[in-house]
């Protein structure tokens, strides 16, 4: 049945001058809608002929008029389309039928009684305005939305109509439709097939939608879902193949967007059943709607890969928007989007600057309540900023996290720290400590290189570059400085020893003790390393400088060096003095 539907739908589609040019296959779903709507129109006309069967249907339809299950209406429309192959004969008639269907849908979907007579002519003229060139693309979205925000539609149409009238011009069919304001109502009533009636009519219409209807019943978006779903399998797949061929050529951006959207639809697995098709239709409108808020990048990557830059950009937001819609249950938003997409489509068809309009429309779509009036005005900047900003923001954050990891490896002791703020604090402290170290070392160099000339060759020797020498090196200065320290001690200790050991102190005995002690101390050079670790116990000797020397020699925590740096300037003098003494 679906295939039949498509066949029926496909025939007239080849003829009508589709705006999107050669990719007729892409327009297949849209034209499917067209044919569907046209079939609906035909059915409506037949209904008007007041056949007994139809009258019964009318009753049933009235019962279902108020049903909120708009998807079923579409099912009925579909069935009617299928059952009326005559609809596929004339292209224009199909379009006109579709327009009528649109009117009907609008009338039925909104509030059954709310279709004001003035709005219907507006709708009719609006739809007829589409007839000239862009009918297919525009009318289908109107067909699809299950829940049209009718007041919005009114405003939209009112806004759109003047521009449409200017650019498109009304066909002769306008008069025909406008002259029949009640036709839309009748068509709407006719099209309001409920699930029950539809099931009952399955045999009648030759459509087996039983399997589909229950699935779509639960979803208020079934209107979008049903037909797209029907069309998705054959049409989109066909589209997909053709899209692949089409994508190679740089075509009209909306066309390309649609094709990519079709691809994305096929590829999209995230969406649920229904929404899987929804994006398909949203593709028609979303192709115009450009950047939406960034949703998973994976989808965008999927579609952006094969596409050109423009198309990629468009497909990305479309993908994202599609996915968004898939997961969202906001039918109102969808409706608005559909409506606006239609408007957008018209705009894009009209102008070369579709993108901006689409973006504005996107902006409007993302904010349904406000932009209904603004979608015509170009506000590309706003939408661009929002969407590209969100995308760029994510990229930025990833970059920053990468760099933070790098820094974490560089800065010692940062592994335990979590969080960016703490990490930054650590990094700041480390950089400050390094800078202070440089200052301190330069000061040391200023004080140290008193006598020695800097022999580059000698310095470039391995002594500088081999870190192994750093450990033994400090021993020597330690030896020199320690001996200075120890030089005082032995003088004291022997006296004590001598006093303790001998009750009587003789100078003669002192000397051997001193000599004995001093060599003992000198022999304890290896123990100096141990002693140097306890240097802090002798602040009077090292001030800060000696301590820093020791610590630097042993590669200890530079923070301690920094603590002592304040005294280094004075300490360096002492060190130099000590060394001079040595």
């Amino acid at each position, binding site marked *: 049945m679906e295939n039949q539907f498509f066949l029926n739908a496909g025939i007239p589609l080849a003829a009508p001058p589709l705006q999107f040019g050669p990719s007729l296959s892409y327009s297949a779903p849209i034209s499917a809608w067209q044919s569907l709507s046209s079939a609906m129109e035909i059915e409506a006309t037949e209904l008007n002929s007041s056949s007994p069967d139809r009258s019964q249907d009318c009753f049933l339809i009235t019962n279902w008029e108020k049903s909120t299950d708009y998807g079923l209406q579409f099912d009925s429309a579909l069935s009617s389309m299928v059952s009326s192959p005559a609809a596929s004969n004339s292209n224009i008639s199909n379009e006109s039928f579709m327009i009528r269907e649109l009117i009907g849908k609008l009338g039925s979907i909104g509030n059954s009684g709310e279709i004001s007579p003035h709005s219907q002519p507006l709708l009719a003229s609006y739809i007829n305005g589409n007839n000239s060139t862009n009918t297919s693309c525009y009318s289908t979205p109107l067909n699809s939305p299950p829940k049209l925000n009718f007041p919005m539609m009114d405003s939209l149409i009112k806004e759109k109509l003047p521009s449409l009238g200017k650019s498109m011009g009304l066909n002769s069919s306008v008069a025909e439709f406008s002259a029949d304001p009640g036709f839309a109502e009748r068509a709407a009533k006719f099209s309001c097939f409920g699930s029950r009636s539809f099931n009952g009519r399955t045999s009648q219409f030759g459509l087996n939608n039983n399997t589909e209807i229950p699935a779509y019943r639960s979803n208020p978006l079934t209107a979008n879902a049903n037909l797209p779903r029907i069309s998705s399998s054959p049409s989109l797949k066909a589209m997909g193949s053709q899209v692949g061929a089409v994508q190679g050529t740089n075509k009209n951006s909306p066309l390309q967007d649609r094709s990519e959207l079709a691809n994305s639809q096929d590829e999209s697995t995230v969406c649920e059943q229904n929404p899987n098709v929804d994006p398909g239709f949203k593709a028609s409108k979303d192709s115009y709607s450009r950047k939406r808020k960034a949703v998973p990048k994976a989808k965008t990557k999927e579609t952006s890969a094969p596409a050109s830059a423009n198309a990629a950009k468009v497909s990305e937001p479309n993908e994202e928007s599609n996915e968004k819609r898939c997961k969202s249950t906001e039918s109102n938003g969808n409706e608005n989007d559909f409506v606006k997409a239609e408007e957008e489509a018209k705009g894009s068809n009209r102008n070369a600057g579709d993108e901006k309009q689409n973006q504005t429309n996107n902006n409007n779509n993302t904010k349904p309540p406000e932009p209904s009036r603004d979608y015509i005005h170009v506000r590309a900047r706003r939408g661009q900023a929002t969407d590209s900003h969100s995308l760029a923001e994510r990229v930025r954050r990833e970059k920053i996290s990468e*760099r933070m990891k790098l820094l974490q490896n560089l800065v010692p002791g940062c592994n335990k720290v979590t969080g960016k703020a703490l990490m930054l604090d650590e990094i700041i402290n480390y950089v400050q400590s390094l800078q202070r170290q*440089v200052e301190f070392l330069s000061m040391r160099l200023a004080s140290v*290189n*008193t*006598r020695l000339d800097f022999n580059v060759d000698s310095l470039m020797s391995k002594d500088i570059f081999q870190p192994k020498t750093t450990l033994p090196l*400090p021993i020597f200065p330690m030896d020199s400085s320690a001996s200075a320290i120890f030089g005082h001690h032995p003088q004291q200790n022997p006296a004590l020893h001598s006093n303790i050991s001998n009750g009587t102190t003789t100078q003669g005995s002192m000397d051997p003790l001193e000599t004995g002690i001093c060599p003992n101390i000198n022999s304890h050079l290896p123990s100096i390393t141990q002693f140097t670790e306890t240097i802090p116990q002798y602040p009077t000797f090292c001030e800060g400088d000696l301590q820093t*020397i020791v610590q630097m020699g042993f*590669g200890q925590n530079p923070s301690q060096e920094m603590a002592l740096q304040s005294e280094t300037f004075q300490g360096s003098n002492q060190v130099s003095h000590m060394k001079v003494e040595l």
Partner: protein
Amino acid sequence: MSPMNNPQDLNPSSLKSRFTTRFLRALTKINGQKPISSSSPREMFQRYRRIKVAADKSMAWSVRSRRTWSRAMLWKLRSRYSCRQASSSRRSSVRTSTIIKSRQAKTSHEKENKNTTTGQDEVGFVVQADKLRKLVPGGEAMDLCNLLGETAHYIKCLTTQVQVMRKIAHFYSL
């Protein structure tokens, strides 16, 4: 400081070797300029300043212009040097003041831009980012992403500098 640095150090074109050669040359120059006879604090301080500048300059030169911070540091040093040169001559005193003012204006303008951009950056750690900007030369005009990259390289260079200077100090403290 670790044995891992050895193969890199022996590479004549490594950052460490480049810095070392330059720094040593600067040190010899500084030592040759004034004989270190007295250890008056003032002279010591002046030497200290010169050595510090030499260390920074040689490090920045080793990196050339590949990094923003090195470029900024070199620019700062040159402007300071040119200001000093100009200040030595009375005629160009006005020029130096203008240079200084222009540099200050530039930095302030950069800071303003930075402030506006940081407003769009993450809000969480703007304070730390500002601190980091002050620490890293030329960091005032960078966004957070680049700032972090520059900081990483700057830390690496600083550690190299500290290593080399420490070894030199050790070598000559004997």
